[in-house]
């Protein structure tokens, strides 16, 4: 029965306008990420520059032409002039003593030229002082200073930082969007009055569980296809290295997202059940939005200090766990029991929330028109509505 309901949700949602818009937006987002990754990752391509050498006595040409690990250098002698600089044919004009730039000095090119020429000068003067190459090496031997951070091996701090921010933000936004979708579906049933005939066939909690399942499949499917497409696309286009942490982080993020989805969409279903008109949807969703926003705020304020008690406690509370658990995990690998406990609490709460949502759905069925208030629900908390 639950699959029949889930199937209807998938089929009718997949051709609905809001879903298509969301898919389009996510697609654009994925493309943007891909482009961004390409631009940022562009650093492993050597930058091509051309240096114009003018005047005589410039024997540095050969040295500069060797370039550096990050620069591919073209030496222009013929026509190395101010005109060529103005036309953009060369990046800099060097006459042996002065560097001439078009607008301002490019620090990368500037330091490349200085370093290359200084190194040549060192070598020449060392030769004049009769220093053996080994002595020169000793002269320039760098001091050996190791680095460590309190958080441990943090060679991947940047990756973790981005992963934490991105997973938190994505979870927050997707839960909110899909929660609103689910709520709209519930209100649609109530406002179109189809609910009474539905409930003659199925229990409200079966109905709601079917809706959560159907939308969940759609949401996860959409995400996997888009993210999977992005990863495959990036792998094909360029040789990126997948951070090793991904293989533990991704399944955890997915599991948290799935359970968080079950919990939050049930909650949106519950709050949606209190109203019968689309006009009331905005105010009705506030009780479901607030805890989600709170979880996100905790994450946002804790990004410098991801171990603080609010985050730790919040990662076990079902209202904030969907955002805070992947957030915490992105900074430090969590113990298995912590993850298991948090996910267990989340799944149990989802079951409770579905039942509560079903109860509210059935209860407020008989109060069409007026909104069902929470005070009213509380007064009638023992009401037996099947």
């Amino acid at each position: 029965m639950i699959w029949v309901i889930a199937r209807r949700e998938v089929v009718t949602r997949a051709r609905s306008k809001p879903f298509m818009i969301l898919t389009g937006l996510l697609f654009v987002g994925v493309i943007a990420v891909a482009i961004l990754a390409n631009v940022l990752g562009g650093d492993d391509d050597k930058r091509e520059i051309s240096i114009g050498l003018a005047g005589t006595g410039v024997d540095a040409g050969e040295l500069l032409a060797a370039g550096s690990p990050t620069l591919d250098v073209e030496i222009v002698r013929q026509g190395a002039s101010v005109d060529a600089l103005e036309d953009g044919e060369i990046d800099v004009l060097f006459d042996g003593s002065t560097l001439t730039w078009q607008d301002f000095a490019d620090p990368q090119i500037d330091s490349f030229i200085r370093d290359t020429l200084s190194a040549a000068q060192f070598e020449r003067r060392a030769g004049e002082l009769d220093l053996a190459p080994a002595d020169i090496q000793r002269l320039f031997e760098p001091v050996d200073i190791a680095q460590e951070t309190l958080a441990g091996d943090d060679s991947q701090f940047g990756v973790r930082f981005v992963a934490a921010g991105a997973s938190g933000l994505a979870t927050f936004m997707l839960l909110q969007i899909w929660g609103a979708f689910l709520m709209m579906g519930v209100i649609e049933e109530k406002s179109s009055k189809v609910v009474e005939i539905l409930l003659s066939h199925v229990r409200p909690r079966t109905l709601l569980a079917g809706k959560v399942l159907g939308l969940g499949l759609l949401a996860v499917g959409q995400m996997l296809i888009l993210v999977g497409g992005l990863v495959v696309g990036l792998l094909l286009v360029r040789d990126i290295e997948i951070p090793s942490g991904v293989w533990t982080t991704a399944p955890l993020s997915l599991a948290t997202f799935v359970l968080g989805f079950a919990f939050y969409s049930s909650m949106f279903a519950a709050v949606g059940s209190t109203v019968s008109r689309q006009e009331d949807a905005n105010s009705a969703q506030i009780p479901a939005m607030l805890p989600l926003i709170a979880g996100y705020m905790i994450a946002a304020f804790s990004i410098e200090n991801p171990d603080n008690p609010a985050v730790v406690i919040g990662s076990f509370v079902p209202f904030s766990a969907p955002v805070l658990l992947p957030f915490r995990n992105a900074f430090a690998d969590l113990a298995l029991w912590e993850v298991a406990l948090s996910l267990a609490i989340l799944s149990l709460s989802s079951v409770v929330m579905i039942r509560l949502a079903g109860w509210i759905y059935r209860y407020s069925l008989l109060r069409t028109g007026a909104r069902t208030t929470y005070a009213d629900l509380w007064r009638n908390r023992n009401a037996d509505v099947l």
Partner: protein
Amino acid sequence: MDRGLNIVNLHKRFGDVVALNGVSLTVPQGALIGFLGPNGSGKTTTMRAVMGMVRPDAGSISWNGADITEAVRRRIGYMPQERGLYARMRAREQIVYFGQLAGLDRSEAGRRAGQWLERLDLGDRADSLVQELSGGNQQRVQLAVSLVHDPELLILDEPFAGLDPVAAETMREIISERTQKGASVLFSSHQLDLVSNLTSDAVIVANGSVVASGSIDELRSRSPVRRLRIRWKEPVAAWTPLAGSLSEFDGRSATVEMAADADAAAGIAHALRAGPIDDLSMEPPELSELFSDLVNGGGGS
């Protein structure tokens, strides 16, 4: 024994409002019962109680002698007073979906949906979204939704409300056809002429209680009032009946309201003395008159 729907002594309060105050009724297998009463008399609440939408405070409901479980309820065809369909679902999809919810598998639901769409002249609109259909066609889809699983019991809340004459005729045909095939039908209505055309059995409720039930003829004959209608061949002078009261008199015909146990023969003899009679009838009140008497007077029988 006990084949059919049995509702015994149903009570339900909503806050201070007593919705049901001891409603009892029986729909035997294959019977077609009209459930009559003014708005707010408890018809919808009773039907919702059968469908499990309302849990009664007291009383019992059984089908073929057993409690109505979820599985039993799935085999009931229900048409709520508040009609409703998914607006953005195609007509066929919708019928198939509710067929599946009623326990049919997908292919069987699909086959039956096709049959119903043909039967209801919706074959060419099968793939239209419900919101694109006219009101009358939406009602047809609604009917198909409540019948697709071939229910043994039909609970129809105001099935004729909002139907155009053609659709009402289709509805009448289909309801009769269902009962002939052995289904039990309970339908509510406040349009009494439709009820008299369709069924011979009725239950009348007012203020949450059953005020009368039985065959319509029997209900009428149980009335303490009889109407004696006389038409003379020639106009007569002013005339006063022997017993009862004269409710209509135009010089040539008269209607006398008299007690059912009054001496009818003496009354007719008295009329004959005024002149030769062309036409004569003595009948209990019509259902509609009975209805307003019962409902307004609150009197039971």
